[in-house]
């Protein structure tokens, strides 16, 4: 994304918006991770607390999810830069 075409005052406001959204995006990643790992790992409702087996599964799931997101982010960044931005001269 290229916000160079906007003036400085606009860029300042956009930067603030990005910062605000980053927090939101992080919280969303976190909630997605929790829900996915819960769904994949917790299936025993004969106990009230998370079992050690479930906890181990959640740990691996959380690690994998974060590494997955990071790897997608790296590829995403590379591929985004290769794309010709719309409206730019070809």
């Amino acid at each position, binding site marked *: 994304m290229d916000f160079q075409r906007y003036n400085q005052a606009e860029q300042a406001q956009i930067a603030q918006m990005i910062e605000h959204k980053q927090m939101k995006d992080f*919280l969303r990643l976190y909630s997605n991770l929790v829900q996915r790992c819960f769904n994949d*790992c917790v299936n025993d409702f004969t106990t009230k607390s998370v079992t050690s087996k479930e906890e181990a599964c959640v740990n691996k799931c959380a690690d994998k999810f974060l590494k997955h997101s990071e790897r997608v982010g790296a590829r995403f960044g590379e591929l985004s830069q290769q794309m010709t931005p719309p409206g730019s001269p070809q």
Partner: protein
Amino acid sequence: MSMFGGGFQAQQSVNPQNIAMAEQELDMVTDLFNRIVDSCYTKCISTEYQQNDLSQGESVCIDRCVAKFFDVNAKVGEKMQQMGGGQPPQ
């Protein structure tokens, strides 16, 4: 008498950042609740729909499911703080 609206609002200044923080906190709690409703419905409720009430088994399952979701949420939170060295939001 104040020229700018009711006396009450004029006495204290509203910090928009505080409002934004409160909104974020509220949205997070609502999101957590909705995810728990969703996951625990899938885990605990039989879709045969033979009765209008929750069965004894379903009720117990819901209680444990909510408790375990909180557990997983807390454990993943701790894990991410250790990894990121992040501070919990004040």
